[in-house]
Structures are given as structure tokens and as C-alpha cells.
């Protein structure tokens, strides 16, 4: 490769540049000659559907992956970032999408790994390490994370914060964040954006990816849109519909479909004074054809509520009614039998069997119906599954491909489709759109409304208040395990939900 143009170097040069970067995985071209540049003092958002190449680009810039072709320049000079360490030496630090924390080590050990304070005989001084970690966390306004605790015991949001802090304390010149907000609540997102604004005011360069449009417009100075492994352009001002159209390559009229009309129907699912770990005295009624939203800050009992309705978390008191009669749900098997389905947010650990095929995952819940004398009848499995793939527009090369080859949004759809196949009429959706790209989100929204229209009932938690406000007939806001407020459509706004949630609430940061 020839030398770059001389005019590009010097203080006016971009802080970081990727020039005609390509990278393939197997037969898939994840990045196809994409170029990108960001300046000092700027917050730069990368947007695009899942699989558009954003994460690959970040990994290459962060030294975690090598490009097949193209080059990376820092302040105009070509550099060889062949390892995260090499990137770190150049002041480039990354918060990767998948967590890189060590679960059975303490927060302090994770924060200070490979930079541990040493005491006598050059041995690590653990007491000092905890104190330093304490100081770091407190300095960044984090009070609810104990540096002596194990990472394994932290919530996902807390882990994400530790991951971010770990990079922030390195005082990066160029900070790359791959979907840093996907598991954060509103407060934590605000905290993170405070940090980002502070860095940019100190002339650092911040590059991040997100699927939440509001966040992007809140904090980003410029936006680069990606599709199919290439960049489509960089914008300082662009409206959401135009951006979505660019990202998906198709016209999207409105992100949120219209709510189905709600008739006075009988309750399908009721909870009365439900108690359990994290849940105290929750009562709710879910009717046929209704989309009932549940909102609030992360860690306030939503997860426990959803999982106990599905029999996957213990309850200590209260009762559950299905079709107006009392039922006992002590495990997911009971719940499935009663027509209750749960789609959790953590697809990898709580729903799908990743190495198994799309077809098998789809039909897992209806195996008894599909099998004769305990032997699965292959033909039936295939037909039922194939229908669903078409209906939900699941993008898979075939039913026999393992699920882990699919993108996150499509994995989520496989899980949804599984329950539709099982003919569940009570569908519990727990933060299903987290980390899912806009186009797929849109499809999931349409699916939700069509479920309601068919007369099924949807109970739906989301960490995205916009979503709740646009899709739900009613929204229950949870705080410290209780229902703190109930809002009814029309006229629900995201601001209402957030303010109901944060009233007197404590959060990880602040």
C-alpha cells in the first residue's frame, strides 16, 4: 500500500480512520471496503442493522480482529493494531458488546487486572486493590457496586458499568463502545452520556453503536450509517424515518404500528398480591387482546415477576388465575401447559439451544404433538417450522442451520415463533427488543399487535420507555418490586413512565 496523502497528517487529520476495510468470516463478507473517520472532540454514532458491519469495524479499530484488506490510521499515520494491547498503546480502548469480565473474580480484580497494586515481594496487595477500586468507582459516581463482590453476583447492568469503568479509568484518547447501553436503565444511560460528554469536552474521540434512536440523537455529533458491510454516509442531522429507510434499504412509514382496538374482554391472566424474591404484592389483570406494558428501572422486580408467572422463579405468596380459575404454576412445564409463553431477553442462556438447528429450536415446545411413540416425525417438524419461518420473516439459510449462526434479532424471532407454534395465548415478552436492530424491531412490533388482534394477550416489559408508550394499552410502572403507577393509553409518554419509575428510586449510579 502506498503512503497516504501528506495533507492528511498533522493536527488537522482525523483522530482515527478506517480506509477501505474488508473482513470476511467463512463465506460471509462482514465488512466490504468500508471507510470511516472520526475527529477529536466528537461523539460519533455508528448505526445500521445487525450484521451491517458495525461490530466488525469496532473490533478492527480496537485491535481485536485483523482486517483482510484496508488500513487503519491514527492522526494520519498508518498503524498496525494487531492486538488489543497494541491498540491500548496507541490510546485506543474498547468496550466490547459481549462482556469480557471474569465472573468468579471480584469487581476490584476485574477493574485492575494486570495493573494490580503491588506490596511486599511484588505480591498483589489486595486490601489496596479494593481501596483503589473503591476510589475509582466513587470518583465516577457509582455507589451501589461493591468492589469486593464477585462479578457473577452483579446484575447485567452493573456488569456493563464495570466493563465501561474499566476502560474509562485508562483515560483513553479514542474510546470505542459497542452497544454500551443495551443492558442499562435510563439513569445509567444518563450517567454514561455524562461521561461521554465530559470526554468529548476534553478533546477525546468517542465512537459508539446503538439501536436506540433517541440516545443517538441525544449524544452524537455525527452519525455514520452502515448497510451490508459498507458505509452509506455520515450525517450531522438526519430524521429517524430517513435513517431507518437508509439502514434497511426499504421505505418504513412508521416504526410503531397502530394499537389494535381493545374490547371489554374477560381477563385471561390475573395475579393477586403476588410475593416472591424481588416481587412484593403485585396484582395485575391481563385481558384477551390486550398489550399490557410493564416499565421501570432495571432491577426493580420485572424480571422476577415475569419469571414467576412462567414458573421459573419461586413465589412465596399470592395467587395466579388463568381464565378466571386459580392455577398452580411451580415450573415452566406447568406454565406451558396453561398456554403461557415466555420470551426472555437473554436468548443465549435462557431460551435457545444455540448449537441445535433452527427447526429443532422452533419445535422444542411442541415435541409431544409432533412425535409418535416418542419418535419425532421429521416431516411434521419441518412443515410446521417452515410456515413459521415464512410468517415471521426469519432470515436463516435453512431450518438445519444451527441457531447461533443467526443474528440476534432473528434468534429472538425463532424464540417467538416457537411459542406461536405452541399456540400459547398468554405471551410474556421480557425486553425482547434489546440489542435488536430497527428493522427487526419493527417486525417484532407488528407481530405483537397481530398477536393481540388474534385475541391473545401480551404482557411486555421493555427497558425502552418509547416502545412501551407507543405499543401498550396500559403501562404498569414497577419500583422496588411493587406496582408504583398505572398509565393508560392514549396519552402515555415515555417521560411519564420514566418519571414514575425514578421517583424516590435508587439506582446503581447517581
Amino acid at each position, binding site marked *: 500500500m502506498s503512503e497516504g496523502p501528506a495533507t492528511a497528517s498533522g493536527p488537522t487529520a482525523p483522530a482515527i480512520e478506517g480506509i477501505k476495510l474488508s473482513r470476511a468470516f467463512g463465506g460471509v463478507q462482514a465488512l466490504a471496503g468500508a471507510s470511516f473517520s472520526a475527529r477529536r472532540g466528537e461523539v460519533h454514532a455508528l448505526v445500521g442493522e445487525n450484521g451491517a458491519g458495525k461490530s466488525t469495524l469496532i473490533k478492527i479499530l480496537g485491535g481485536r480482529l485483523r482486517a483482510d484488506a484496508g488500513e487503519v490510521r491514527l492522526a494520519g499515520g498508518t498503524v498496525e493494531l494487531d492486538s488489543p494491547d497494541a491498540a491500548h498503546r496507541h490510546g485506543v480502548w474498547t468496550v466490547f458488546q459481549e*462482556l469480557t469480565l*471474569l*465472573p468468579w*473474580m471480584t469487581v476490584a480484580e476485574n477493574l485492575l487486572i494486570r495493573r494490580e497494586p503491588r506490596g511486599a515481594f511484588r505480591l498483589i496487595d489486595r486490601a489496596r486493590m479494593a481501596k483503589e477500586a473503591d476510589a475509582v468507582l466513587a470518583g465516577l459516581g457509582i455507589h451501589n457496586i*461493591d468492589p469486593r463482590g464477585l462479578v457473577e453476583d452483579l446484575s447485567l447492568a452493573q456488569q456493563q458499568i464495570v466493563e465501561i469503568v474499566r476502560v474509562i479509568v485508562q483515560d483513553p484518547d479514542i474510546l470505542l463502545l459497542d452497544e454500551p447501553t443495551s443492558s442499562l436503565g435510563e439513569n445509567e444511560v444518563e450517567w454514561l452520556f455524562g461521561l461521554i460528554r465530559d470526554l468529548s469536552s476534553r478533546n477525546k474521540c468517542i465512537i459508539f453503536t446503538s439501536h436506540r434512536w433517541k440516545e443517538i440523537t441525544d449524544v452524537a455529533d455525527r452519525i455514520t450509517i452502515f448497510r451490508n458491510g459498507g458505509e452509506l454516509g455520515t450525517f450531522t442531522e438526519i430524521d429517524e424515518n430517513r435513517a431507518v429507510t437508509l439502514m434497511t434499504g426499504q421505505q418504513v412509514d412508521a416504526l410503531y404500528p397502530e394499537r389494535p382496538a381493545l374490547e371489554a374482554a374477560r381477563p385471561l391472566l390475573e395475579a393477586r398480591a403476588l410475593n416472591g424474591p424481588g416481587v412484593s404484592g403485585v396484582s395485575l389483570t391481563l385481558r384477551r387482546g390486550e398489550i399490557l406494558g410493564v416499565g421501570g428501572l432495571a432491577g426493580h422486580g420485572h424480571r422476577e415477576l415475569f419469571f414467576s408467572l412462567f414458573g421459573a422463579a419461586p413465589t412465596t405468596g399470592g395467587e395466579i388465575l388463568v381464565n378466571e380459575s386459580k392455577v398452580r404454576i411451580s415450573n415452566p412445564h406447568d406454565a406451558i401447559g396453561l398456554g403461557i409463553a415466555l420470551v426472555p431477553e437473554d436468548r443465549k442462556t435462557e431460551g435457545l439451544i444455540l448449537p441445535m438447528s433452527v427447526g429443532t429450536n422452533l419445535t422444542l415446545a411442541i415435541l409431544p404433538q409432533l412425535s409418535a411413540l416418542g419418535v419425532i416425525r421429521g416431516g411434521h417438524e419441518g412443515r410446521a417450522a417452515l410456515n413459521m419461518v415464512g410468517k415471521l420473516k426469519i432470515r436463516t439459510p435453512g431450518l438445519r442451520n444451527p441457531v447461533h449462526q443467526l443474528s440476534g434479532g432473528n434468534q429472538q424471532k425463532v424464540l417467538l415463533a416457537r411459542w406461536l407454534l405452541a399456540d400459547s395465548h398468554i405471551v410474556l415478552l421480557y425486553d425482547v427488543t434489546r440489542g435488536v436492530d430497527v428493522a427487526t424491531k419493527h417486525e417484532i412490533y407488528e407481530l405483537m399487535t397481530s398477536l393481540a388482534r388474534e385475541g391473545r394477550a401480551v404482557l411486555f416489559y421493555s427497558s425502552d420507555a418509547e416502545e412501551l408508550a407507543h405499543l401498550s394499552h396500559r403501562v404498569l410502572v414497577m419500583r422496588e418490586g411493587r406496582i408504583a403507577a398505572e398509565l393508560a393509553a392514549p396519552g402515555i409518554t415515555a417521560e411519564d413512565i420514566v418519571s414514575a419509575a425514578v421517583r424516590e428510586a435508587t439506582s446503581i449510579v447517581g
Partner: protein
Amino acid sequence: MSAEAAIERRRTRRLTHFLAQNVGLVLALAMLVMAVVLYGAAYWIEQTALPGMFELTSTVNNTMALVLCGMGQAFVVVTRGLDLSVGGVMDLANALAAVHIKDSVGSMVGWSLAILAIGALLGLVNGLLVAVGRLQPILVTLATLSIYQGLAIRVLPQPGGSIPPVYSSVLVNPNWPTALVYVLVVALIWYAFRRSSLGVSIFALGNDEQAARANGIDTVRAQIAAFTLSGLMSAAAGLFLAATATAGDATTGNGFTLSSIVAVVLGGMNLFGGRGSGVGVIAGAFVTTMIVNILFFSNIDPLYQSFYEGLFLVIAVVLGALISRLMRRRSR
């Protein structure tokens, strides 16, 4: 909330953190205390006296080999591996010691160091095959176990040779429990290991290999180092075995592959890697000896002895798992 209350809360939290993070260690120590009490009771009933200096000495001397190879095994278990060649390395060390160590300071020191180096080398071979060759630890060490055993038989085809009495009395003095010093040394080795970069790397590898690499840790080097340490410790175990026997036998190390795993499990280490304490393994090694003692003095029909040993193990492991689950739940 007052400042004192905050400090108090912090302190109790620190204690629960310690307990929750070291369930295995705490349980192993509790088990050891229980075993010693049971042994004392059985001994009292049989002898109307309490165990004294001789019992302490012989228990420590007989357990030293297991303490050492158990610790070696622990290094590998932390990485989520298993080292089945422990017994083979011990056999070879034992055989070499019996054949070569002569009654002079030079020979004793020189050959001891040489044997330790050979042990480390054998461990290094395991480590290279596993880390660089990307092979399953169990397969690799199962194969090298046979190879090392074969080498040991070549060195000492028939049980024999001899260990200078001075050497024996320095390592395992029959009259005084001086070997306790070595137990302390092994515990200190673990303490330092846990607070070294190598320790961090090996533990990080056992936590999550991908994450460790993302943190810039050289996981290949960490894995090789773990196996090398295991070989080194096993060779030391072989030396102690020869010293206790006062002579060599190229097959007496064989049983230690399994015993070392038992010690690791009783010591509360997690076989899935990343968690556990070597101090617990030391306790685990002593518990296995205590089980022999307890059964001996409780006049159990020798034909059912291994049945009871197995029963004891199962109960210990199941109880341990239950308690640790409970403790972790409460600490959350």
C-alpha cells in the same frame, strides 16, 4: 444512617463476601476440623487417650506426598483441566531418587533439584501438547501417564534402591512433625501464587478463556505454566514418597492420580475451573488421611472399608455442594 452503622454494615458485608467467595475453602477446613474431632473421639474410645506426637508425625509424613501432588493438580484444575499424569511423574521421581540419591550433601541437593527440574519438564510437555497442540487435557495426560510410568519402570525395574536416612529425616522426620514446615511452605506457595501475575493469568483462564484473552492475558502461556507447576509439585511429591518409604518402587505413585483429584474435590475446588483455594486442597489431603484413621479406630470390618470411604466422599461432596449453594444464595 450513622457513620458507625455504615462501617459496621460494610464489615459484615466483607465477612459475607469472604464466606461466599471462599465457600469451598471454609467447608474444607470445617470438614478437616470435624474429621480430626471424630478421629480424636474414635481414638479415645479405643485407647482411652488422645492422639499425640507420634500420631501427628506419622499423619503429616504420610500425607505430605498427597499435599504436594494435590496442590499440583489444583493448578491444572483452576484452568478447567485435569492432570492424570501426576502419578506417572511421581513414579519417575520416586525411581530416580531411589537410584541416584547418595549419602552426600552434593548428591542429595543436586539430585533433588535435578528431579524437580525433570518433573517440571514433564509438566511442560503436557502443557505444550494441551495449549499449543490444542488437545484435550485428559487425553494428553492419560497418554503421558503411561509414558512416564514406562520411563519409571526403566529407571527402576524392580523395587529397591535406597534413600539415605539423613535425606529421609530432613524431609519426613519419623520422630518429630517437622514436615509441618513443608505444609506451611506449600500454603505460602499458594498464597504467593494467588497474588502473582501468573496466578491472575491462570485464574482468569479458568474463569473464561475468551474474556481472559480480551484482557490481554496470554492464555497459552498460562496453561503451559499450570501444567509445568503440576509436574514440579508432583516430582516433589515423588521425593517425599521415596523419603517416607526409605526406598524406591516405580509403581507406588500410580494411585496418586486419583487421590490428588479426591483431595482437590474435598478441598472445595470447582472442577469447572476458576474457583477454589489451594489451602482447601491441603485440608482435603489431610481429610483423606483422617478418613483412613477414623475407619481404623472405629473397628469397621475391613471388607467394607472402601464402601465407607466412598460413602464418606459422596456425603462430603453432596453436603459441600448444598451448603455452598445455600451460602451463595444468601450472600446475594
